[in-house]
């Protein structure tokens, strides 16, 4: 497979695209997906292991998660999750062949950005705002 008979086109790289909402949301989908997979799933596993490990191991997790730097990471991952969530929802619609008209495509690309910021703020408002 090292030299196919007719070279296949390479994946488009960041440098050859003009920045716009569609392009931004596309690369953000990949970046946020990578972040919630690598960092998010590591934290999920650590959280479950800490609960299973006993009070002492959970106290270590809680100290890191509750530290200002830990909270910033968790807030960042919350945004990454919501951006990937809304962008993924948009991809499922695009997979049906709908939503490729230029204006509609651009509108929903921007709405994923608005939606993720709003949902992140709402999530943390509810998590912190009810005195937890």
């Amino acid at each position, binding site marked *: 497979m090292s030299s196919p008979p007719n070279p296949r086109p390479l994946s488009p790289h960041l440098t050859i695209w003009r920045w716009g909402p569609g392009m931004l949301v596309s690369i953000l989908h990949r970046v946020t997906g990578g972040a919630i997979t690598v960092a998010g*799933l590591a934290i999920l*596993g650590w959280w479950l292991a800490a609960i299973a490990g006993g009070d002492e191991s959970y106290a270590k997790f809680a100290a890191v998660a509750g530290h200002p730097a830990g909270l910033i990471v968790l807030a960042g991952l919350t945004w990454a999750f919501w951006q990937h969530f809304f962008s993924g929802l948009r991809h499922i619609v695009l997979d049906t062949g709908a939503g490729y008209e230029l204006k509609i495509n651009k509108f929903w690309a921007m709405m994923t950005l608005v939606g993720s910021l709003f949902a992140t703020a709402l999530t943390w408002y509810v998590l912190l705002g009810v005195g937890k």
Partner: protein
Amino acid sequence: MSLGESATPLGKVEGLGSSHHGGHHWLEERFTSVALLLLSLWLIFSLIMLPVLDRAMFREWLGSAWGAVPMALFVIAAFKHGVDGLKVAVDDYVHDEGNRIATHFALDMAGIAGAAASLFALAKIAFGAA
């Protein structure tokens, strides 16, 4: 194999593309994404609805089937979808076939290990052994 005029559309594209079996992978990624739409919303709403966020509360919540079963499904779907997604990025940027397969293998091992460790911890909590 030469592809003449008579080749079917499927025959013309089979074995091409960066991963060589993209159709199956593509569909699986969609299945887990739809599952995660539901399971991730369940997780966020569950955390919001818990009166406090501490170890005792999490043990009580995950000690019930209503907490433990969706959490197990979330762990499985999230690790599967995460590994599938990272593989797509690897297919795009790692052009050497040997490195590409080695990276896929490493991602599979890391994903399976992470999911197994998470499920073991969850089982321990769910069965009251924690």
